[in-house]
């Protein structure tokens, strides 16, 4: 049984991972198609495999930190490609930045997610506008923090973050890639949505689902 909507506990963390697995599995063909256009056509399959493994591990801990650490490790062990280490690091470093408590508050969660995003930047070296997952991750945490600062509830704030992630992903379409495989195409990478940004948007939709879910 999950805590009230304002708080984030192990069950909600696990729900985030399982919802991610479901949304990404459902969008696998679209993600692969995006990756076929400017990459190597494996992104949908990579993440489907990775999040399925992560979801299997999602029940094994009592704290959000434990859940996300386990999920992140499982993701790294099962995904491969660029997205495995990057998404895995996002989850593990988000986890590491969380208080080691059964329930964490909205601001702690937002700070931890920001730490996760920073870790992705550091590992991958991507800047804003390089046409990577960072272009969805960054607007999402910014929107999350902004909404919480304005006094929004966690579900409402994460909903805004998810919208920002989607907008960020769409905004990658005209960009020329400077990181990842799409960068090999130079100018020809423009005109296509970045697959990693698209899957990142799904991750935030899953978080919105998990934090907003009624526990009745």
């Amino acid at each position: 049984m999950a805590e009230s909507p304002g708080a984030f506990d192990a069950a909600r963390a696990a729900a985030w991972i399982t919802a991610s697995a479901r949304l990404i599995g459902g969008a696998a063909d679209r993600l692969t198609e995006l990756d076929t256009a400017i990459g190597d056509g494996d992104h949908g399959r990579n993440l489907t495999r990775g999040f399925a493994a992560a979801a299997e591990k999602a029940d094994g801990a009592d704290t959000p930190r434990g859940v996300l650490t386990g999920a992140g490790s499982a993701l790294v062990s099962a995904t491969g490609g660029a997205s495995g280490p990057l998404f895995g690091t996002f989850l593990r470093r988000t986890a590491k930045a969380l208080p080691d408590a059964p329930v964490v508050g909205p601001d702690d969660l937002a700070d931890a997610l920001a730490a996760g995003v920073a870790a992705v930047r550091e590992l991958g070296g991507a800047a804003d506008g390089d046409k990577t997952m960072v272009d969805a991750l960054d607007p999402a945490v910014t929107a999350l923090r902004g909404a919480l600062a304005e006094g929004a509830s966690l579900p409402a704030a994460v909903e805004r973050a998810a919208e920002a992630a989607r907008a960020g992903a769409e905004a990658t379409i005209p960009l020329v890639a400077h990181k990842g495989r799409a960068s090999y195409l130079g100018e020809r990478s423009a005109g296509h949505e970045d697959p990693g940004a698209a899957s990142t948007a799904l991750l935030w939709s899953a978080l919105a689902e998990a934090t907003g879910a009624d526990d009745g």
Partner: protein
Amino acid sequence: MKKIINAPEDVVADTLRGLAAAHPELRVDAKNGFVARGEAIRLGKIGLVSGGGSGHEPLHAGFVGYGMLDAACPGDVFTSPVPDQILAATKAADGGHGVLHIVKNYTGDVLNFRMAADLADDEDIAVATVVVDDDVAVEDSTHTAGRRGTGATVFVEKIAGALAEEGAGLDACAAIAAEVNERSASFGIALRAGTVPTAGRPGFELAEDEIEIGVGIHGEPGRRRGAMATARELTATAMESLHDAKPLDGRLLVLVNGMGGTPLSELYIAYAEVADWCARHNVTISRNLVGNYVTSLDMAGFSITVCRLTEDLMRLWDAPVRTPALRWGR
């Protein structure tokens, strides 16, 4: 998509099954995701581990054996292996004096091998890493993920492998691997895209008179689309790009490499033109290799890789090798 496969998602496992059946001299550990030499590593010998996405056969598992790799870890099609399998391969290849990771320069490969190296460090295995980035079709700038690793990987694996067999230490093996990479350059041209089994359709579509110039080995389009041309012209395009990036001089080792769907006769025709180009430009080819070595599924096309040899590199290239895909001297 028409392929000799059982199911798109079984391609890697079934290929390994076939490799194991055909080569009892190899140890194919499907569970842990690596292929190693059948016999235990010689104590003290530096271990060589490579790996990367599948779909480039015979790279890498086809180069496991005496004089070349100790272990290889194939990932899913076009997907780098995960740290766990790289770690398992590293353990299998460790003779107590350290392991050289030969990594092609792709974000996924670099990150997963880095994580595996960290894990190996936790287990007190010394790991050195060489990142192969020979594909001059990609600009080496902060605006890209850097040059891709392609054909030079074969040269690095063969030459560092020969040095390791001679008993050299980890630093020396890493240094010569870096030297080979530094002295090498590659350029590829595609006539038809390959098809990732799970994607089901080609990575790009080309008209009857179009080609992709400066193409990689993962089905991504090249730097630009061009008009189909003669073997002589295609070869000149590639040779000039190589020469612009790293002036061709001294004695070359040349690989004319097929992308998987191109028959050997066309590769020999390309090689005839490479030899002609070199003769016209006063460049000497001392060693060559013509065939399908670093493929991209069933892509039609070819790449040219050159390495400016030294005395040492030539000696190590000539040293005996005994692997499924490269064999001479024993």
